[in-house]
């Protein structure tokens, strides 16, 4: 089994930047990612797309080539198509690649596993034809596949970005159905100072809105009571807007109300997490370098708290500097000297977040779905059932497993965990921190017997 100074999981901006920085400081580095090519979610397939598609995705997308080129020129070993499903203390990482298992040991681990779309349980969200907006973007970036008759539903700048990209590709969305309200916008004004420090982002947002207006894409803000109707697939998006019920016939519904850290790997390693009120999600508890309370485990990028692609790359580099210093490849003085400009750049990147988080809060209806709404997609458990569990004495997400099957399907709670915490907290009157989150145990992704059999020392795989 080969051994590395550092193994990084995730080849998005955070993982790519960290790997390059650490390798250039003299560490032996392996970068593992389940995708066939480097880039992560934002820069998905950036080295692979035809020019025409790159042009309509825009310069913020092609900017990712700076990171992929630096990665290729560095001595980093990048293992593509590697699904990491176990990280044991010490550290031994197990992953599957092409149907075979493989293992690797490392002194230190950096988790750069990025974000997931915030779960958006609305009536009908499990119907074929309903996808996350990020999925719509992945279809476009990776495959050049675009929805013909789509409605975008939710809140946040990513919704405008995908709408503009669809417009430029010649298939504008039928409408944007947005859940933020005028009151949210007014509340955000008290963070205007930060927004102005992050002016390029604000300017980009305003340009996107102007482009959508010119393109004739209707926007319905403050939408409520959203429902997707259809028998075997999405057919109609139904919502109320300014007291009127509206029905939009469509084939595809793209949902988005923000992204949240993908904490699966960090939780499986026992890293402490806490609730972020501003971001309305759990984040790992880290020091200013991304160092967790588990010795040798670092977290960077959106998996450490949502900050966007540029902040992700900067936090990856900061973590790499701290790791190089811990491994005696850099003096503390040198680490701090190199970190200074990165820190101020990161503060600039993060400046607009409070404004954005307040102007585009998560959709209230999806945070506290009505009883009949499915919250666990895998096991088809409704919000009402989770509330029943709470009434029967269930206090936290791990106990729900004694009451029913919520969170026990293959996605391991990725798309119901935050909802279940919110429903239980609401019912018991406890805080999200007191309520807690699912205990995550390996395997992080299902493993086949064949993959296990090809390992020399099969790792312990706890039961759910």
């Amino acid at each position, binding site marked *: 089994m080969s051994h590395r100074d550092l193994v990084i999981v995730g080849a998005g901006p955070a993982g790519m930047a960290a790997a390059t920085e650490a390798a250039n400081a003299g560490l032996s580095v392996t970068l593992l990612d389940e995708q066939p090519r480097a880039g992560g979610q934002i820069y998905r397939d950036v080295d692979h797309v035809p020019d025409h598609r790159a042009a309509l995705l825009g310069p913020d997308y092609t900017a990712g080539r700076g990171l992929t080129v630096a990665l290729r020129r560095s001595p980093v070993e990048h293992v593509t198509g590697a699904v990491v499903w176990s990280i044991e203390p010490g550290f031994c990482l197990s992953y599957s690649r092409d149907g075979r298992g493989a293992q690797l040991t490392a002194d230190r681990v950096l988790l750069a596993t990025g974000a997931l779309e915030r779960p958006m349980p609305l009536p009908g969200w499990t119907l*074929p034809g309903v996808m996350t907006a990020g999925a719509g973007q992945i279809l476009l970036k990776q495959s050049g*596949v675009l929805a013909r008759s789509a409605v975008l539903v939710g809140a946040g700048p990513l919704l405008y970005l995908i709408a503009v990209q669809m417009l430029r590709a010649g*298939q504008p969305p039928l409408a944007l159905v947005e859940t933020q309200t005028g009151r949210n916008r007014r509340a955000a004004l008290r963070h205007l100072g930060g927004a102005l420090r992050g002016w390029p982002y604000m300017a980009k947002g305003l340009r996107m809105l102007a482009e959508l207006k010119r393109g004739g894409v209707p926007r319905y803000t403050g939408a409520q009571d959203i429902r997707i109707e259809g028998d075997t697939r999405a057919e109609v998006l139904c919502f109320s807007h300014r007291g009127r019920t509206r029905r939009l016939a469509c084939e595809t519904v793209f949902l988005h109300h923000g992204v949240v850290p993908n904490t699966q790997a960090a939780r499986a390693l026992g890293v402490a997490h806490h609730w972020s009120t501003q971001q309305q999600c759990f984040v790992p508890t880290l020091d200013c370098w991304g160092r967790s309370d588990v010795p040798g485990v670092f977290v960077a990028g959106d998996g450490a708290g949502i900050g966007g692609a540029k902040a992700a790359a900067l936090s990856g580099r900061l973590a790499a500097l701290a790791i190089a210093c811990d491994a005696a490849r850099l003096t503390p003085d040198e680490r701090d000297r190199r970190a200074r400009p990165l820190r101020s750049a990161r503060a600039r990147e993060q400046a607009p977040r409070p404004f954005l988080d307040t102007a585009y809060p998560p959709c209230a209806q999806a945070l506290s779905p009505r009883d009949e709404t499915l919250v666990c997609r895998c096991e088809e458990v409704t919000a009402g059932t989770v509330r029943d569990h709470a009434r029967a004495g269930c206090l936290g997400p791990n106990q729900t497993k004694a009451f029913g099957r919520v969170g026990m399907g293959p996605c391991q709670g990725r798309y119901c965990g935050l909802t279940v915490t919110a429903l239980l907290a609401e019912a018991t009157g406890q805080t999200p921190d007191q309520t807690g989150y699912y205990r995550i145990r390996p395997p992080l992704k299902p493993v086949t017997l064949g993959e296990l059999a090809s390992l020399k020392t099969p790792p312990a795989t706890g039961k759910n």
Partner: protein
Amino acid sequence: MNPVLPFLEIEASSAPRVEVRFDGAPLLLPLGANLAAALLAAGIERFRDTPVSGAPRAPFCMMGACFDCLVEIDGMQRQACMIEVAEGLQITRPGSPEVRHVAS
């Protein structure tokens, strides 16, 4: 025939098309393309039926997290959004009883 499909390909793919079978029906998909995307572009709307209620499902996240794109290939359930199109793939829809008959 060929009604307007929900998804379209914005540029002609330069990859050669290879034959795969979905529930026994032949499809010509671009070699090396993302399988879930290629199936959607080919007009496949229902990828699987859930084991719990038999409800139809199709890709939701396209990033390997939701498992709604599960299809059966060579007797194994795999995430279509995490694999690439290869010549001769025999794909079946998990959970639909009529398919199990055809496959056996």
